[in-house]
């Protein structure tokens, strides 16, 4: 059976996440049909564009694995920038302002997490509410518009280089590695899987379900804050509306990366690759001269195809055994 070439092919399809094949196919297609795609400039551009989504997606995969979801992350990205702008303009040094910006998002996550676990309210509803709260605070701080962030140093995070690579790359890498470690090597990571498959049983096993839930949303919020720092630094502006919709692209990244929306299982690598697919699609299609509306539709189609493809491979693999 194993020698059968079609089976071996299926076997390969199975062990390499389907999303990786989609990414490879996309890269090949864009290299062939878009002259400016395969340039170093564009690669760095891709990294800067994609960093925000990838960082948020690493938080989203944790929330979804735990059986929840975090819809507030897009609004938190905007909030971070306005908090940084607001505090710098009032004389705070930029590193401190950055920390405050991230901590505000951690606090938002903490509040969401507490309401979810203590109030026994669906994460969907709570984080949806937090989305509006965060956005309106952001709009309040920026007086309804955007705040220019003064100073060269802060913008270095978005536009600078470290070891020949854009700083957002390093930020993303560190964030992803921390989440990977958190999920795979710490007890909290284990508990997140356990809670996601059945919160009741998890509590019967002696797991402190409430505490873990709170941690999940603190983590997700904090990562949204980090993404917000990268975003604000890239555009040198605090704008409450800037991250709008990122939550949905993050959910899409997680889902096409092979993580079921129902919880209990999750692939961080899949989510990261998923965010790459979306970033590459957006970038490549824009380079091709497609309008942003059309780009969105194509991303939507890719989301569905990605999930269908993953399902086919899964079923095919089962039959192959």
């Amino acid at each position, binding site marked *: 059976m194993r020698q059968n070439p079609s089976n071996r092919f299926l076997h390969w399809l199975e062990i390499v996440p389907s999303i990786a094949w989609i990414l490879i196919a996309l890269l090949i297609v864009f290299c062939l049909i878009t002259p400016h795609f395969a340039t170093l400039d564009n690669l760095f551009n891709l990294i800067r564009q994609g960093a925000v989504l990838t960082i948020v997606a690493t938080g989203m995969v944790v929330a979804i694995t735990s059986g929840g979801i975090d819809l507030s992350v897009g609004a938190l990205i905007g909030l971070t920038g306005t908090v940084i702008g607001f505090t710098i303009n009032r004389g705070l040094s930029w590193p401190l302002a950055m920390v405050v910006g991230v901590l505000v998002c951690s606090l938002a996550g903490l509040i969401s997490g507490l309401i979810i676990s203590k109030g026994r309210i669906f994460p969907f509803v709570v984080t949806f509410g937090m989305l509006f709260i965060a956005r309106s605070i952001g709009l309040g701080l920026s007086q309804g518009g955007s705040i220019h962030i003064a100073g060269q140093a802060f913008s270095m995070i978005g536009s600078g280089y470290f070891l020949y690579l854009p700083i957002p790359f390093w930020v993303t890498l560190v964030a992803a590695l921390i989440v990977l470690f958190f999920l795979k090597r*710490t007890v909290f990571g*284990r*508990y997140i899987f*356990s809670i*996601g498959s059945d919160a009741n*049983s*998890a509590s019967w*096993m*002696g797991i402190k379900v409430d505490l873990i839930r709170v941690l999940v949303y603190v983590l997700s919020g904090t990562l949204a804050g980090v993404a917000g720092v990268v975003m604000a630094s890239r555009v040198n502006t605090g704008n409450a509306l800037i991250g709008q919709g990122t939550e949905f692209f993050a959910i899409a990244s997680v889902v096409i990366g092979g993580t079921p929306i129902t919880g*209990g299982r999750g692939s961080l690598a899949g989510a990261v690759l998923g965010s790459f697919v979306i970033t590459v699609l957006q970038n490549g299609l824009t380079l091709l001269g497609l309008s942003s509306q059309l780009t969105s539709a194509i991303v939507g189609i890719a989301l569905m195809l990605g999930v269908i493809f993953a399902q086919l491979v899964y079923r095919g693999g089962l039959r192959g055994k």
Partner: protein
Amino acid sequence: MAENHRIVDMQGIIKNFPGVKALDMVDFDLSKGEIHVLVGENGAGKSTLVKILAGVLPLDHGTILIDGTPERIANPSRAQQLGISIVFQESNLSPYLTVAQNIFISHEPCRAGFVVDVREEERQAHELLRSLSMDINPNELVANLSLGKQQLVAFARALSFNPRVIILDEPTSSLTAQETELMFTTLRKLKKEGVGIIYISHRLEELFQIGDRITVLRDGKRIDTLLTKNTELNTIIRMMVGRDISEMYPKEITEIGKEAFRLEKVTRKGVCKDIDLTVRTGEVVGLFGLVGAGRTETMRMAFGLDAMESGSIFLYGEKIKHPSPSKSVGLGIGFSPEDRKQEGLCLALSLKENIARASLDQLFRSGFVSGKKENEIAQKYIHDLSIATPSVDRLALYLSGGTQQKVVLAQWLCAKSSILILDEPTRGIDVGTKAEIYRMINQLAQKGTAILVISSELPEVMGISDRIYVMCRGEITGMLDRADATPEKIAALAFGTQETINATKS
């Protein structure tokens, strides 16, 4: 003297659920090195009692002494600290974590308090599984294991705490005979080491194999505690049910008519091969086989749930073209699945909605559902099948297993099914309700319904069937008439003895 060895002493335990007194002044104790069996019908309070001891449920009144000291077991962690370990009835492992990760979840070998020492965890899991003679790879995902293996992993997890008290709630319900024996061997060893074991089971024959004492619960009250060696099975059944069951299987011979439902050469690769099977009107046909023999899969194809590769299904001699569930229901075939919670009922719907669910087209031809009519129909079946429920609006979720099974039956009676396929209709159901369901099967057969019962219980299949088909590894290995059927013959066919294997090969 015995007092000194008492590890657990529960006194006057009272637990109320909304509308039900789940436990009413129950006393229960466990000594060192003892296997104490808890029996009772569904809803008698067995699981509630052990969940209180395991810190999962809070108690309303009563005292728990552990080694003679009063303890408040507020949460599962506290129970674990006290050396009390539990294997729950429902598997509560995380399917997408590995065996090793599941065994050690909530007490992982750690560095710095929260970083899991993965290698140490794997080593310990490997050692533990080997010491229990369990042939399970610690790095396998739990989702890839059979239900039986999963249950063994849950058992291994309970032992990984090195507990002084182990609670097993229906541990053998999905174990094979070998796996059960393996578990019993371990339990006997633990007993010798002085561990106290609380054992809940519906399989009464098991009690006599391993139990030292038996406590019978009924309707939340403790009826009696007996020494196993001085007790007879009938006594226990009488205590559980509260009345005599003169005969568990009140088979009535009915007049058997013409062919109603027939499978011809039904085949699907890797599932079943050339299945020929006939059920006649007024006949109860048993389909026996070991777990994994392909019985459920075959009947799912016959009902149209899964596609078959070749073969035909005939209804009253007429071939059903392209069988599908909706066509089958329309033609009067009913299917009661093995997993009634997942497949047989909508748990979030009320009792009356569940009953009418398969016959909405017939009942409400206008397309509008009438609540009044639904109520009347539900009342009729509540009366006919003596369904125990406070109201027709009770959600199926809150009904006991036996009542749920009756609702599934009512669903198909309401759809006027003339052919019923019942997959393990009495799994996890208490003795009293079992007998009631057998009586209903008899009554239906008398009215001319053709009934096929898939069962893994030998006494059941012999007790209720007019004819018995036996399946083994996807094939029918034999058919026996009621008069010819003996446990030995059926078992030989089910295990596929040498002759039958040779016969199929040639």
